[in-house]
């Protein structure tokens, strides 16, 4: 095989094949983009408050301790389904209060336990953040995570 394949043939295969797979990838990307916007996420409830909540999430770099839909750091629990874990589907008001109380109570200072910093979020920021997490919990993730432990 090494004798039959010439360098210029190898080059043509490289450029031709790359162009082919790149086009395929772009086509699938376009479809995926539309699928996200139209089917798997709820564009209609992506309110300014949800968008603002995403900014709060980013501003405090929550992703560098937690994972969100399985991506991020592995130091602290998955939060893509935290709304569900706190019972938000059945009792939205209770879940909201529970999450706020949790974030206000940090750090716990319990010896030997990982600590979450106190971010001093305002009432508004907390509400936006929770709206964001609630919105994320409704993304169609093909059934992931396997259970509410996340």
């Amino acid at each position, binding site marked *: 095989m090494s004798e039959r394949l010439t360098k210029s043939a190898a080059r043509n295969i490289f450029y031709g094949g790359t162009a082919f797979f790149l086009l395929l990838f772009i086509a699938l990307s376009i479809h995926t983009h539309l699928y996200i916007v139209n089917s798997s996420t709820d564009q209609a409830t992506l309110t300014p408050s949800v968008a603002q909540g995403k900014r709060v999430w980013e501003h405090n770099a929550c992703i560098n301790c937690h994972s969100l839909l399985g*991506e991020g750091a592995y130091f602290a629990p998955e939060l893509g389904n935290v709304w569900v874990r706190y019972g938000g589907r059945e009792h939205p008001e209770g879940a909201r209060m529970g999450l706020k109380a949790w974030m206000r109570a940090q750090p716990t200072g319990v010896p030997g336990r990982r600590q979450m910093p106190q971010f001093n979020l305002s009432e508004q920021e907390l509400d936006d953040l929770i709206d964001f997490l609630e919105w994320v919990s409704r993304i169609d993730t093909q059934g992931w995570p396997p259970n509410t432990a996340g």
Partner: protein
Amino acid sequence: MKYSTQKLAYPYFIAALALFAVQVLAGVLAGTAYTLPNLMAESLPFHIIRMIHTNALLVWLLLGYFGAAYFLIPEESERDIHSPKIAWLQLFIFVFAALAAVVSYLMGIHEGREFLEQPLWVKVLLVVAFLLFLYNVSMTVLKGRKTVVSTVLLLGMWGAALLFLFAFYNPDNLALDKMYWWYVVHLWVEGIWELIMASMLAFLLIKMTGVDREVIEKWLYVIVGLALFSGLLGTGHHYYWIGTPGYWQWIGSLFSILEVLPFFAMVLWCFHMVYRSGRNHPNKAAMLWSLGCPVMAFFGAGVWGLMHSFSFINFYSHGTQITAAHGHMAFYGAYVMLNLAFFTYALPQLRNVQPYNQILNMWSFWVMTASMAFMTFTLTFAGVLQTHLQRVMGLGFMEIQQQLDLFYWMRLLSGIVFVIGVILYIYAALGPVKNQVSPSLNLRAANK
């Protein structure tokens, strides 16, 4: 060294190694936060340490590629670098941006997407530095001899810069955000960076084995072809559970299998060329790194990557310590070792001496490689346990973590040993020159 502007590589390598030290020190701190969580919780919280750790990694790897390009492009193009002044300006901007990022993280100023935490103006500076680089080397290549090595390297660098532009796109819709985030993260390490890797290895092989360039370059095309054919659609292995369509489960699983091929091909390529040359290059340490690199990349990226890439496995392992195990060995094998190989090869020429401090350098190879392997095994065990307890049994995250304490201590221990390896390497590479290889031996073998 045939061209005086190749010397530009030297300051790049020094800056890269300095940031390598920062990276692994932050790694040890992050490992400490896992084992002694109360120690720095207030003064230096985990999320800040982690962004310094990962960002320093990416920045020093890039500095290594830039330096390598300034070293190899003149030899490939048979002419000096277009503008040494631009190269210095680029270095200055890039290092300034990196340091500014670290300082701003310590002050709590950052953006909030993993690996892309740099404040906007730092991102802009990084792009400016990248553009200066691309202009400078493209001009050099255009005016000089065109080889496959320099073409593939340029493609890799241009591609990396273009893909980084997606770092500026941050939609409100989280699923869209994630989809395009992987354009930077996955398409870098499992696509375009493999072009950089293969071309740097090709250069090292041409120089050290003396095998005919035609043969090496033909296989270079084959390898980068395999990398892009598999890596583009291989992005699918990140599109399982983030709101993307179900067909990615098939595409991602299938193309992940193919993603192993370029790494396997690089192993065969390097060993075959060295075997075929039958020549003993006097820079034995550089040879060791150049052979170790594809092997560890094959295990870290290929084997560990494939292990959790099938959608029915990833469903359980996604975002656990298994991911961290893979991330460490893959980055180490493919890109850390690549740079260390290149530095080891180029530094004797940059310092105008024969290969030196080789025993110490080779010790650092074994210390780093062994401790990274150990760290990967520990994290893999931790990850398998975590996956079982959390994803199968449904126990709570924090509850399980306490049971993994022993593994985190072993990770910290291997991290400390790794840092010792880094210190050995930096001392061997930049410290006083001792035990040079006799010049006659070097001349006889390296005349190519």
